[in-house]
């Protein structure tokens, strides 16, 4: 395999990271909803923490995207 092809394969493999982040983000919101339905009164106060968890999970997926972009355009 020459280097150019390896780069594209690597960029494609980085997409797995995006899928993993999808699981993570789904987990964050799913767990929040599960808790919120049990105790709706406490749900509104936890919205900030919900988005912190979302941001942390999402960042790792975006890093996978950055890796793909670096492989295609920079490396």
């Amino acid at each position, binding site marked *: 395999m020459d280097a150019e092809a390896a780069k594209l394969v690597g960029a494609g493999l980085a997409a797995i990271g995006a899928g993993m982040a999808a699981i993570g983000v789904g987990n964050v919101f799913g767990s929040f909803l599960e808790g919120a339905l049990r105790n709706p009164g406490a749900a509104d106060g936890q919205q900030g923490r919900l*988005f912190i968890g979302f941001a942390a999970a999402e960042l790792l997926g975006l890093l996978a995207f950055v890796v793909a972009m670096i492989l295609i355009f920079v490396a």
Partner: protein
Amino acid sequence: MSASSGKIDPMHQFEVQTIWDGFTIGGQQIAFTNSAAWMCVTVVVLWAFMLGGLKRQVIPGRWQMMVEGFTGFIDSMLMQNIGKEGKKYVPYVFSLFMFILFANILGLLPLGVVGVHPFTFTSHFTITGVLAIMSFSIVLIVGFWKHGLHFFSLFVPHGTPVWLLPVIPLIEFVSFMVRPFSLGLRLFVAMIAGHILLKVLAGFVINSANNGLVTGLGVGIPSFALMVGVSALELLVAAIQAYVFALLTSLYINDAEHLH
């Protein structure tokens, strides 16, 4: 993106183009670019939006309600995360939130139909990085101003076991220093990813329609339907990313105000 060659270039929209050549200082060109132009547009739109709501009527109209909704939102967010010391950061966090929100949404507007191509300047790390550095320096300045060298106790949380003392400060230091990068990176990558996705789908629609009736109906219409959905998602992401930026800024300021 050219329809004739069939080649999709989704990165073209992120190119910074010079509108006015400007002048040079020390060999560096200072030019007026489309990025700068859209920053000016954002500021003007934001200004108009705020002026329309600052009438201070006792019984607020719709516009004033809208503006007060935004200010109340940021105010309560800072109250929740920082406490009453958070009051003095409302102007900064509010400007940050509104600037990013308006920039993201203006970049999404379908003005290309009338020949004006919006440039999403929040999709460039130079801009989000500077915004992140601004937040980070406020954290550093406030932290050292209020607590002096005691600010370094941020790296040793309360109740750290003694045998972890060699490791924890290092980890905390790295996680502290990585904050401006993750703050800037999140916003710009989220914007880039969404806009590339929209352009790729748009390329599908154009190319499949050029290819013939069957592919136009079979590929073009589902792609177009997906584009509408993704556009709605992008509006949501534009708002969430602005919110997350403001939220994380307020959390970091809280660290500087109260340590751990």
